C-alpha cells in the first residue's frame, strides 16, 4: 500500500489532520460548541461551490469561506445578539443553501464535488501536503503557545474576563483554528465529516482520561489512530476515507465508553 505515492501523501495528510482536529476540538467541546465544525463545514461547502463558479481552486475559496463563517459565528455569540446554537444554525443553513445555489449555477454537481464533501484518498497532491503540513504545524504551535490562556477561558470564561485575560481574542483564535482545521482536512475527511473528527476523539478521551492534559493526549492518539486506520480500511475496501475515518472514531468512542463503564461498575 505504501509503495503507492498517493497513499503516502494521503497518510501524511491524514497524520496532520488526525493530530490537529482533536486538539482544536478539545476547546470546542469544552466550550459547549461541539457543532461549530459542522457550521463552518457547511460554509466551506459554499466556498467550494464559489471556487467552481469563479474558476479558482476550491481549496482556497473553501478556506476563505470557513474563516469568514467562523468569524461570523464568534461575532454573533460574543455579542450575545443570539445564543450560541442559534448563531450556529444561522451560519449552518445559510452556508448549505448558498452552496447548493452556487453549485447548481456552476453546473458542478459531479464526482469532484463529492471528493470535497466526503474526502478522497486520490486527491492529495504534493503541494496539498506541503500546505496541509505548514498550516497544521502553525496551528499546533499557536495552541502550544496559548495553552494556558485557552485552558483558563475554556474552564471559566467569566472568571478569565474578570481577571483581565483577552477572552474575546482567545475565543476568536479558537474559532479561526476550527476554520483552519476544516480547510486543512477537506481533502482527506471531507468538509461534511471533519467536525466529527474534532469531536468524537475528544468525547472518547473524556471517558477515560484523568486530567486536562491526558484528555488532549488521548484524544490526539484516538484521532491519529482513526485517521490512519480509516485510510487503510478505505484503501483495501475501496470506501470513501471520510466515512471510514469517522466510523473508526465512533468505534473508539464505544470502546472508551465500555472501558469507563467497566471501571466504575460496582
Amino acid at each position, binding site marked *: 500500500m505504501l509503495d503507492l505515492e498517493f497513499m503516502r501523501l494521503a497518510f501524511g495528510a491524514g497524520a496532520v489532520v488526525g493530530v490537529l482536529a482533536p486538539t482544536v476540538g*478539545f476547546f470546542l*467541546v*469544552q*466550550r*459547549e460548541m461541539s457543532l461549530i465544525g459542522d457550521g463552518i463545514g457547511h460554509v466551506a461547502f459554499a466556498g467550494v461551490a464559489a471556487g467552481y463558479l469563479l474558476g479558482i481552486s476550491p481549496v482556497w475559496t473553501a478556506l476563505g469561506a470557513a474563516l469568514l463563517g467562523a468569524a461570523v459565528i464568534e461575532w454573533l455569540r460574543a455579542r450575545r445578539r443570539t445564543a450560541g446554537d442559534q448563531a450556529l444554525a444561522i451560519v449552518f443553513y445559510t452556508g448549505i443553501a448558498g452552496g447548493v445555489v452556487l453549485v447548481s449555477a456552476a453546473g458542478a454537481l459531479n464526482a469532484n464535488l463529492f471528493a470535497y464533501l466526503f474526502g478522497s484518498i486520490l486527491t492529495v497532491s504534493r503541494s496539498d501536503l506541503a500546505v496541509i503540513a505548514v498550516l497544521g504545524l502553525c496551528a499546533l504551535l499557536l495552541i502550544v*503557545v*496559548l495553552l*494556558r*490562556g485557552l*485552558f*483558563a477561558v*475554556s*474552564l*471559566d*470564561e*467569566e*472568571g*478569565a*474576563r*474578570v*481577571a*483581565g*485575560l*483577552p477572552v474575546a481574542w482567545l475565543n476568536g483564535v479558537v474559532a479561526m483554528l476550527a476554520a483552519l482545521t476544516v480547510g486543512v482536512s477537506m481533502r482527506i475527511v471531507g468538509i461534511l465529516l471533519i467536525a466529527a473528527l474534532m469531536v468524537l476523539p475528544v468525547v472518547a478521551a*473524556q471517558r477515560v*482520561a*484523568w*486530567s*486536562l*492534559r*491526558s*484528555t488532549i493526549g488521548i484524544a490526539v492518539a484516538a484521532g491519529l489512530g482513526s485517521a490512519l486506520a480509516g485510510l487503510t480500511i478505505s484503501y483495501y475496501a475501496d470506501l470513501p476515507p471520510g466515512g471510514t475515518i469517522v466510523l473508526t472514531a465512533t468505534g473508539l468512542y464505544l470502546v472508551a465508553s465500555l472501558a469507563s463503564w467497566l471501571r466504575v461498575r460496582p
Partner: protein
Amino acid sequence: MPVVELDGVDFGYLQGQRVLSGVDLRVGEGEFVAIAGPNGGGKTTLLRLALGLERPTRGRALLFDEPAHRSSKRACIGYLAQRSQIRLHAPATVRDVVEAGRAPLRLLGRLSREDRRAVDEAIERVGLSHLATRPMRRLSGGQQQRAFIAKALASRPRLLVLDEPTTGVDVEAQEALGDLLRRLHEDLGVTILYVSHEFGAVEAFVERLVLVRERIVFDGPPSELPGMWHDPSHAHA
C-alpha cells in the same frame, strides 16, 4: 485608596429598566463585606458593575481608583464565579483548575517555578493538598468549591470576590467555607466581597453587611441589622 467605589450608580439592562438606582458604595483595603439581598434585587448586577463587566447608565464605578471597565489591575482580582458558569466537561484535576488561576499573570509559555509554588501554596491553604491530582468530578460539592477558591487565590489577589459561593453546597460544607474565608481574611489581609442571597456562613465574623434591593437599604455591621431584614432573601422595602 478604596478597592471598589460606586458613586450615584444607576443601571438597567434594557432602556428604561432600572435594576439599580442611586447606589453609593465604598469598600476599603482589607474589608470583609457581605452583599446580600433577595433574588432579583440587583446584588449580582452591583458586583458586575464593581468589576467593570457592565457600565453604569449614570454615575461612576471605580476599581483600584481606575474606571472599572478599563482597570489595569485586574490580575489583582481573585474571582469565584457562580458554579453554573464553570465548565467541567473534561476531567480536570484540582491542580489543573488552580493552575488556570495563574494565567492572568502570564498568558504565554510554560508554568514557572514561581507559578508552581503559588499553585501549591493555594492548594495547601484550602486543605486540598492530598487531593491535588484527583479529578474534580470525584470531589464533593464543598471540596470543588474549595478548589475554585484555590484557583482564585493562585494569583495572590488583593481582592477576592465570591459570587453565590454556597449554592449547591450542604450546610456542613458552608460552615467549612465560612471558616476558610475567615482564616484567609486574617492571614492574608485580602479584601473580600461575598455576594449571596443569604450570609449565614459568614454572619459570625463578617465586618460589614450591605443589603441590596434596587438601592442599598442597609449598610453596616450585621449586629445592627433590623430584625425584619434578618433573612435578607426576603428584604422588605
